[in-house]
């Protein structure tokens, strides 16, 4: 079972993703509510996959991707983005994110993305 770390400042989003992932054969091993926490949790938990929100307090998702990539070149990170954040997504991809999901997301899209990468 693939281990996933969910990063989002909105508890609601974390909950939604968790529910989708858990009912589709993923194991959610951790949650973080900002970039700094995400880096800490990544190092601690070594997840197979990370879902990463972009706009977060303390440290945003792009910075977190950079830091995680620096720590682990193989890290598989999927950005969770909203419409209108094209530039940020692009930055995230440059920083090393593998793919992205656009909010509001459909279950199929989440599962497809996380299964493929």
């Amino acid at each position, binding site marked *: 079972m693939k281990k996933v770390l969910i990063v989002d*400042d*909105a*508890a*609601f*989003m974390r*909950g*939604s993703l968790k*529910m*989708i992932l858990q*009912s589709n054969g993923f194991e959610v091993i951790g949650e973080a*509510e*900002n970039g700094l*926490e995400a880096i800490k949790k990544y190092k601690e938990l070594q997840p197979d996959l990370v879902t990463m929100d972009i*706009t*977060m*307090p*303390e*440290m*945003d998702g*792009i*910075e977190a991707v*950079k830091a995680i990539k620096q720590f682990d070149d193989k890290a598989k990170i999927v950005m969770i*983005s*909203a*419409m*209108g954040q*094209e530039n940020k*997504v*692009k*930055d995230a*991809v*440059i*920083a090393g*994110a*593998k*793919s*992205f999901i*656009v*909010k*509001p*997301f*459909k*279950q199929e*899209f989440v599962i*497809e*993305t996380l299964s*493929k*990468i």
Partner: protein
Amino acid sequence: MSSNREPMLDLYIFETTQQIEKLEQTVLDSEQATDMQVSINEIFRIMHTIKGNSAMMLFNNISELAHSMEDLFDHLRETKCWMHQGFDYIKISDLVLEGIDFIKGELDKINNNQSADGDAASLIGRIRKLLEENKSDNPSSEQQKEEKKRKKPKYYISSQKGVLEDSETTYDALVFFEEGCEMEDIRAFTLVHSVKEIASEVKYHPEDILENSESKEYIIKNGFKLTITSSQSIEEVRELFNRTPFLRSFDIEKAGMKKKEQRRIILDDNELEDKAPEQADEYIKQSSDAKSNEGFEVKEDVSKIEAVKTAEAEVNVSRSAPSVGQAVSSAMISVNVSKLDQLLDLVGELVISEAMVTRNPDLAGLQLDSFYKSARQLRKITNELQDIAMSIRMVSLAPTFSKMNRLVRDMSKKIGKQVNLELVGQDTEVDKNIIENIGDPLMHLIRNAIDHGIETMEERLQAGKSPTGSITLEARNSGGDVWIEVKDDGRGLSREKIYNKAFEHGLTAKRLEELSDREIFSFIFLPGFSTKEKVTEFSGRGVGMDVVQKNIEKVRGTIQVESTLGKGTTIAIKIPLTLSIIDGMTIKVGESRYTIPITSIKESLRISNEQVVKDLSGNEMIILRGESLPIIRLHKLYSVNTLIEDLQEGIIIVVESENKTVCLFVDELIGEQQVVVKTLPNYVKNVRGVAGCTILGDGGISLILNIQGLMNTQSA
């Protein structure tokens, strides 16, 4: 997904409500702040979150509203136009507050299982319009933005090795993305980015995927073409495409030609025309013919890409501003309030059971040393448990207090008075029940203070006061009570006016001189009392103060008014910290038992008949240390049959509330014990002087007396 939604709804409502409250505070703060960038970032972020969450829950009206505000604040933070002189931020904050109210309303509906069907279209329209106005007001900044965009570094995706190896093959690929996956242009970019990892050279069409917003439509319609030069086999390339999410279909085939020696570092669009390989030429022509004046196809060293990355990183660092009041609470869990209520109820029952066991009548007269030792241990643990159970329910007053900022802002703007609200001690914690009951009364009091208390600016200047009125909302702990004070420096209460009004309404028969300030001011809490002739939107309908008092009494609180004419008014509310368990003295009248809160007992004594005097209307009083105190015979008040009617045979308990003292005449004292306050059932509500009831150790019922209420029955 739909089956997943329901359980998420609670979390959605909870989180959005929190966000909205924080947002409201941030907006109010931002009006005061000199550097608004922090607040603007915060507002932007919250709007962004609400937009995303609401869209997930399909509350489209909320989501769209949040989106429009997000755009507005994105504009503000990017252009920093709030720094310009004459920038009208109030206009914006008004709209945002209106939006907050809308979302609050919708949340209430959702909470009550109604559909969130509010129409935000006109509000969204106004926000969009304001955004447009702002944009046109700041053409310069827009231009800058445009320029910035134009100057944006281009992204070069190309070979690490300049020389094409013999083993390398060039593939052509045409890719279509899945419908509805969104941001097809960025997806294309992502694809290129991952292909780059196995390719020495990647070219693609349309090239301007990042700069031209039309490329998105083009990709949706015509697909995205790539030309990949790689040492990998076609199967391996296919595998990579297979692992790419959201590809509806893709064709990969070997391109006709193999190439050698292709070292090119092309920095400029013009050079590109000459030097790019034929295939690329073709693409470029297509694109430049089609639309792009910025189309490019450039190869660069990896080092360049790195440089771009670093530049981007710097931009991002400067952009991520510190957040306002971020609370990280990983050690916290949220619990349903009804469970806390249950817990407290159970602890209450436990306290009663403990009393039932240790004070069991069967034990009377027995020598039970080791039993009492264990009983003491039980009591100690019960007490600790009780403390913990109550402390769990303690909530800070801060959110309730902060709500008043908004009220003061809106009101003072509307009625044209300048009012400054100061909050003191808002970190004081009280029981959750108290919080629920105190919000409305406080709002009433503050409304009253602004409307009736604080004078207009002219009046204030004439009276030699600062033109800005000040209201202080203060909370503090003292003993087992929490005091909440609303203090204003307005015109104060007029004894005469209140007395006249009270007299007119037949609320008192006494003369003005006979009444103390406190007695006169207490008239304002009587139903239907209002001296304000003019009814405003906010107050003055004469419903209010009596409702305030009722609400406060619900949490066993009391209100005192102090006022100096011309100087201001202070309304002090005293509420016991916890509601449900009190230390009480249980007493007996006839066969009935009553419990008096220990905190209100001054002393108890036996008296002789010589100390008793009667006034003209036959009211009994005793003279105690030179003071004459009225006697309330409980057996008379509650029509209880008792054998002890002679004052000499019973016990006098001197009780005090709000600096008034009376004597209660009862048969005998039973003893001091903790009791759990239970509310009276509805059909016996509103018994004068009774706050609730409790179950005693022997299973009997005792009525808990409300001393303040008793005094009111006396004076009426």
